[in-house]
């Protein structure tokens, strides 16, 4: 049930911000400071989410096969690999390390 509540709240709030952008008069969100915060917010959240999903299990910090997978994905990113390759590298390396250390 709580999953459905989360889905409903997310669906309504994400739709509301999309619609707000189309409806508010131009200029309301055009101040440099507001734009700057809006541009940096996804950076902060994505960085924290990447780190947490790679290095945490519930509320404990862990260093396991996923960290190796993410490191491999970072290398693929630096080599300008396409999106598919980056994800595939992360998955394959994680599975490989897990199978070896199993």
């Amino acid at each position: 049930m709580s999953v459905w509540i989360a889905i409903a709240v997310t669906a309504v709030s994400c739709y509301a911000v999309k619609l707000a952008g189309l409806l508010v008069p131009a200029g309301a969100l055009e101040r440099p400071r507001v734009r700057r915060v809006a541009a940096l917010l996804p950076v902060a959240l994505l960085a924290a989410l990447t780190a947490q999903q790679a290095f945490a299990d519930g509320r404990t910090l862990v260093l396991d096969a996923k960290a190796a997978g993410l490191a491999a994905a970072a290398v693929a990113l630096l080599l300008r690999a396409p999106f598919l390759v980056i994800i595939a590298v992360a998955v394959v390396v994680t599975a490989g390390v897990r199978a070896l250390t199993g």
Partner: protein
Amino acid sequence: MAVGLSGFAFGVTSAGSGLTVLQTCALSLLVFTGASQFALVGALAGGGSPFTAAAGAFFLGVRNAFYGLRLSQLLALPRAVRPFAAHWVIDETTAVSLAQPGRRSARLGFTVTGLSLYTLWNLTTLGGAVGAEAIGDTDTWGLDAAGPAVFLALLAPMLRTTQERAVAAVAVLLGLGTLPVLPAGVPVLMAALAVPVVLYGAGLRARSGTRAAQGRPTAARSHEGTPPTAAQEDDR
């Protein structure tokens, strides 16, 4: 192409996080903004409450309001159409629309991109979710690494300036540092504080820089060839 693959990755990740196929597909149909969906299932898998999980997803979706702002001027949609168009205001439709030379082609680009991505995203989500349920333990196949890898691939192009890298670094410290002590889902929201922290730090540096420049005008002039500072970027 990339959307289809990340739709598949989302379906797999969501099913791996314990959501049913129906819940996974409902997210893609009703939310339709990838980063928020990944964030939500990640937070729920970590044991977060539905409201803290939804708050993280909401903050990631805020950027769509700024896309909508630019699109509303560009597309000049009639008021009656806007509630329907709003659902398709995402990174990709904005990028395609802004790349068009005129209003007619921008509207066409928005509609075609929106329709095809919406279809593709939902079909691949379904495929990923059903596939993940079929193979059982997704962790054995390393599929739990798909979520963080998608985030990393989304994040990397955003890290262009020193300020953006500073925000990412502070966010990682806040997100991981508060993880053991705060309720699940809350640490990601704490990481959002990296934005005011870094902007405040940049403001302090700019102010002390201004004072120094006022005291020594010749020294300030010798810095003209250096890259723009964080404070100057604020004015863009």
